[in-house]
């Protein structure tokens, strides 16, 4: 009885009920299947694109990294770190300054460490105050030596008192010794790889040349000394 009633009702209103059922089921499919999946497809397309791009970038990076000679690179890094180290390295600096003063014909009468944490642009610096005696004629040579030293230094203040009779001077120099902290984002896999430009290559070549001329020990002539046979 109930079934017959339902059939009667359906037959009576089938022109409305069937399209309504079609509409509702289509709407259901769109809301719960087609729309979410299409959105997911678009997002995944973006993700796939990003992954491919990143993969290509890393591939290029690997190729670039493999093209460098490890030994050559570590030698260059060593030279660059000697010129601009990460530490203050007081003892080496004092030794170097003394060596340069002596080479320029000056004798150091006193050394004092000044401000130990200045900020000099992208590097840090500390001051070494040197009091020296020497010839006035040689002073420019001393300045040149200090400013082209194997360790990056800058001349700060200059005080000169000259003695008229002997052409000698008493000078007090403030030398800023530069150092720079190591960069922090070394280990990141996706950090961009810097390229060494022509200027960089020229600079490193000049630093290497400078460092070899400075560190090259003087040749000691091996001449025989004393008797060739001490028992004769």
């Amino acid at each position, binding site marked *: 009885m109930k079934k017959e009633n339902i059939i009667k009702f359906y037959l009576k209103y089938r022109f409305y009920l069937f399209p309504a059922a079609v509409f509702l089921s289509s709407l259901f499919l769109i809301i719960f299947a087609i729309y979410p999946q299409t959105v997911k497809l678009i997002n995944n397309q973006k993700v796939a694109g990003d992954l491919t791009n990143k993969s290509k970038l890393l591939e290029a990076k690997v190729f670039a990294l493999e093209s460098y000679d490890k030994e050559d690179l570590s030698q260059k890094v060593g030279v660059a770190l000697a010129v601009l180290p990460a530490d203050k390295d007081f003892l080496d600096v004092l030794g170097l300054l003394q060596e340069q003063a002596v080479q320029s014909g000056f004798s150091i009468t006193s050394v004092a460490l000044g401000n130990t944490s200045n900020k000099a642009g992208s590097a840090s610096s500390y001051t070494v105050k040197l009091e020296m005696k020497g010839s006035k004629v040689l002073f420019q040579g001393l300045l040149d030596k200090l400013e082209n030293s194997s360790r990056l230094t800058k001349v700060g203040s200059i005080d000169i008192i000259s003695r008229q009779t002997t052409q000698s001077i008493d000078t007090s120099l*403030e030398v800023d010794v530069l150092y720079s902290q190591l960069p922090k984002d070394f280990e990141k*896999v996706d950090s961009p790889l810097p390229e060494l430009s022509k200027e960089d290559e020229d600079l490193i070549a000049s630093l290497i040349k400078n460092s070899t001329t400075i560190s090259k020990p003087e040749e000691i002539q091996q001449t025989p000394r004393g008797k060739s046979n001490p028992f004769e």
Partner: protein
Amino acid sequence: MKISINLLPPETIAEERQKSRFYKIQFIGIAVILIMVFLASLTLALQVLQSRNISVARAQLSEEEQKVVNLKSTQASLLLLKNRLTVINQYLGVSSKSSALYRLIDKLVPPSVVVNSINIDKGGDMTLSALVADSVSLDDLLDSLVSKDDKENKISQVSIQSLGRGRDGQYRISFKIGLK
């Protein structure tokens, strides 16, 4: 000549018309549902295909990342080298203000002038005291400081702090020189 006569009762005719109209609606409805099902399955199939592509791309990426990790010492060296060279390039071969000013003054002061003391601070301000034998040399000194072309436009001002003549007839002058 043919004559067709419909002997069906009008209710039956109306019913037949309604039936054929409903068949059309049914056909369209089923077609719409089939299209929807097709679209749903298509998006599903594409998604499966895409997930496969993504997992391949992820595998490739992790492989490349592993290669970069293996080369991290080279990468660190290169980054460090570039960092050092950038900083070194800013300072190497660039004279500080004080030494540049000393070189300039050494070039400008005539040989007849005896410099007693020079004081140059970090900012490039200089105080110089000198002993000058005669007025001609004094003129030369001031002229060279104020109007010489080879001062490379670095001196902004020269202010005389003291000027006196001693019993020996020599001039004692002290002046301040400022850099641009």
